[in-house]
């Protein structure tokens, strides 16, 4: 017989601030980068307008406020990649004997920063969400191109990174001379994504399932929606001419994660308990608002703008053999159940917690909790302080119930 608790997992999952696509450009270029929501294109479209003073960067917003949310399940995020190399930050601070940091912030990492955001940060993020267009100015790179140009060896790489369950980012560096050949000919430059199945019978014909995204020669990065259910993926940049693909550079194979096909049993006692979202006393208990396991999962999925649509299965643990009922068919029956009432009182303005979760008080300071009481030992810590947090007091009723 599953015992349920109603609790609130306030910190279980934090919302992620919207990811606004920011592009960084050297200050001296005096270019503006505009990021706009792109709603209609199925594949990422990259256009870099290096000759214009203003470069437009269009992107499909990765977050909830993106207009495309509802209709974009199968659409790709479109990014107009900026062709300039990313500018590094200023190194003005370097070489100084001492550093000038905000005095109060100097020190070790803040403890709550991983899971808790301050009001200021929340406001800042909220503001950021509203900004679809964001301009960024960054001081010119300390390590100049001149410095890098001294190297005779030109580093080349293509990297695919999973940012979250829905999005991958590809970025690369390929020598200009190789790309110029592409520009001179009629071949198209493409980012090809191979779906590498983990099924060995399909792997024999690996690389056969793919999709191409046409990219301009001066693009350096691309966002790709993760639609790869099976998990295995590999990317290459190359040229296409008719049915011929000539790879220039490629990644190794990697596994990705998406919410497709994930069907956890969110009704399981252990799933809920892992999140701290079991219910105290079932539906009759009073007052405690709870984040359900299902909503946690949806929140987690939406925090990365997932298109999660999996069916949440349900199923409770099988009950233990019960001694509390006897049934002789239609001739006779008897069942005996027990309920547990925990009640008490404190000052009306006190703070109360039951089993680690805030619990509401009635206007006169009393409280009451009623729950089923199966054969078990119930430990119910009740903790209270006054309105200022003083007089911390814990009382722990322990109830052992046995049926014979």
């Amino acid at each position, binding site marked *: 017989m599953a015992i349920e608790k109603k*609790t609130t997992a306030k910190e279980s999952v934090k919302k992620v601030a919207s990811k606004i696509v920011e592009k960084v450009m050297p200050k001296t270029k005096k270019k503006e980068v505009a990021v706009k929501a792109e709603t209609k294109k199925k594949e990422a479209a990259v256009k870099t307008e290096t000759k214009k003073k203003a470069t437009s960067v269009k992107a499909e917003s990765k977050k909830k406020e993106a207009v495309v949310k509802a209709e974009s399940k199968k659409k790709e995020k479109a990014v107009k990649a900026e062709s300039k190399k990313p500018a590094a930050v200023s190194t003005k601070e370097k070489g100084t004997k001492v550093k*000038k940091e905000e005095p109060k912030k100097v020190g070790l990492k803040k*403890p709550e920063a991983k899971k808790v955001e301050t009001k200021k940060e929340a406001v800042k993020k909220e503001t950021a969400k509203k900004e679809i267009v964001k301009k960024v100015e960054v001081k010119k790179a300390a390590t100049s191109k001149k410095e890098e140009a001294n190297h005779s060896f030109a580093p080349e790489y293509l990297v695919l990174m*999973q940012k979250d*369950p829905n999005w991958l980012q590809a970025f690369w560096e390929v020598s200009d001379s190789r790309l110029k050949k592409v520009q001179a000919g009629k071949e198209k430059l493409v980012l090809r994504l191979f779906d590498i199945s983990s099924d060995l019978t399909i792997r024999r014909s690996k690389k056969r399932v793919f999709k191409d995204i046409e990219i301009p020669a001066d693009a350096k990065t691309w966002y790709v929606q993760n639609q790869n259910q099976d998990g295995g993926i590999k990317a290459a940049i190359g040229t296409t001419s008719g049915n011929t693909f000539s790879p220039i550079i490629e990644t190794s194979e*990697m596994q990705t*994660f998406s919410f497709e096909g994930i069907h956890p049993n969110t009704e*399981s006692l252990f799933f809920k308990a*892992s999140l701290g979202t079991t219910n105290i006393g079932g539906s009759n208990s009073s007052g405690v608002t709870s984040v359900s396991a299902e909503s946690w999962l949806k929140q987690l999925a939406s925090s990365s703008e997932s298109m999660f649509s999996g069916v949440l299965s349900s199923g409770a643990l099988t009950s233990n053999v019960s001694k509390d009922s006897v049934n002789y068919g239609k001739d006779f029956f008897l069942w005996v159940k027990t309920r547990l009432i925990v009640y008490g009182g404190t000052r009306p303005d006190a703070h109360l917690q039951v089993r680690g979760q805030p619990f509401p008080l009635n206007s006169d300071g009393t409280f009451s909790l009623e729950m089923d009481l199966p054969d078990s030992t119930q430990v119910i810590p009740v903790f209270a302080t006054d309105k200022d947090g003083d007089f911390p007091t814990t009382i722990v009723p322990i109830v052992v119930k046995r049926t014979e």
Partner: protein
Amino acid sequence: MGAPGKLLFLLHAHLPFVRHPDHERFLEENWLFEAISETYLPLVQVLSRLLEKGVPGTINLSVSPPLLEMLSDPLLIERYSKHLIKQLDLIEKELIRFEGDPEKLPVIRFYHSRQKALIHTWEQGCHRDLLSAFKLLEESKILTILTCVGTHPFLPAYQSDPDSIRLQLQVTSRCYEEAFGKKPKGVWLPECGYFDGLDSLLAEYGFEYFFLETHGVLLANPPPKFGVFAPMKTPSGLYCIGREQSSSVEVWSRKSGYPGHPEYREFFRDIAFERERKYLGEYFFAGETPIETGLKYYRITGGEQKMIYRPWNAMHLTEDHARLFISNREATFSDLLPHMEGSNACILCPYDAELFGHWWFEGPLFIEALFEKAASSPWLEMASVESVSASIDDSIHRPVFSSWGEGGFSSVWMNDEVQDAYPRFFKMKSLYNHLRSLKKTKRLHRILSQMAREIMLFQSSDWAFMIHNRSAEGYAKSRLDEHYKNVLSLYDLALSKKSDLEELDRLEKKHNLFPWIGELL
């Protein structure tokens, strides 16, 4: 045997490698000094007292390789020893300054006693060697020492470069072995960052278990029967345990967590920001910026008007909070154990070690009280993470891509604020690989070794974290730039025919961690 509920209290101790021998005093080196004085030494004191009292139980501590290196670095040890004396001198000045002040004097006297005890523990108790102290505590079974990956890289960012992960893992293992004379079994993944297949890399280097954020376990394929309340076996034969949320919230939450109680010490009211420069002395200044002294006289209070700290009231409160923490875990165990088919249950409670003492000043006393409360519990015991290995079910589960922190995936460490960091990393790796393809000479090998150190330091997740949270952001950016520039300059040096290796000498002296790294390349 013991109690059926295993409370796996795990502290993750890590600081980025900060060492500036070229400056007599450097602001960010104070991070290490604060952590030693407020967390690591108090932890040694607490565990030693518990041993003396015969209180049973074990706490788990992962110590990252950069921290291992810093805690055994002669320069930093010498500087820290001096730091303790400078603090004591300042406290003694404060005793005179506030003589007759009925409110502040008791607090200053408290700091005076505490400082003398710290100096005693550091000099006579540990002989300036914290790692040996940890080792002794482990031999007494009150501590289990784990490790953490290399320079603390956020591993999902390097999924496409398994060789860089392999080097980090090799360094992890070697560093632990150098410090503790044995191979590590358990490893903390930086930021709990995991991607599908990482367990096979961990297995290559002999690791046996690791830890994940809650959903890394709950969404595993197939999902584990007991959620995060039992260890889970992965395809490579390792086991992992997921974080339980309630116990996290009770401590981490800014709103309702224990450390935010009005009675506890206020973190942000250091006297460094309240005293005149001449009085404090140059040691507590970095340029125009005061450096924290560690002396804080106020309690959180609950409003802007702070009231004077009452150390003994706060100490008493840690006992209440420990009792509550243990009772809440007992409640969970009593709920779940009847459904676990006779198996033991475990609850993994991981925290940054520096939370206890540095951020939450009274945290080490809370830990001491936890041991004492748990000792009398019929439901649970403070247990080593290695104690649950016997109860692992043979079924195999594939954990999923996950991390702790905002959003649960990678947004803190892989975002637009650090968008240039990863391309720079892969550029450095290309240069490094190019040099590795050249004919080996002693000179080249030496340069490659330093390049490896610089690249690994660049990979530390701390920089992205600081930039994302606007905390010491300027320093984080300057470190990224510095390591990048160093790699480019070493690459140039390798290709040149310069016989003058002055720059290489300088870098080897400054970023001197992992002196044996050349043997791994």
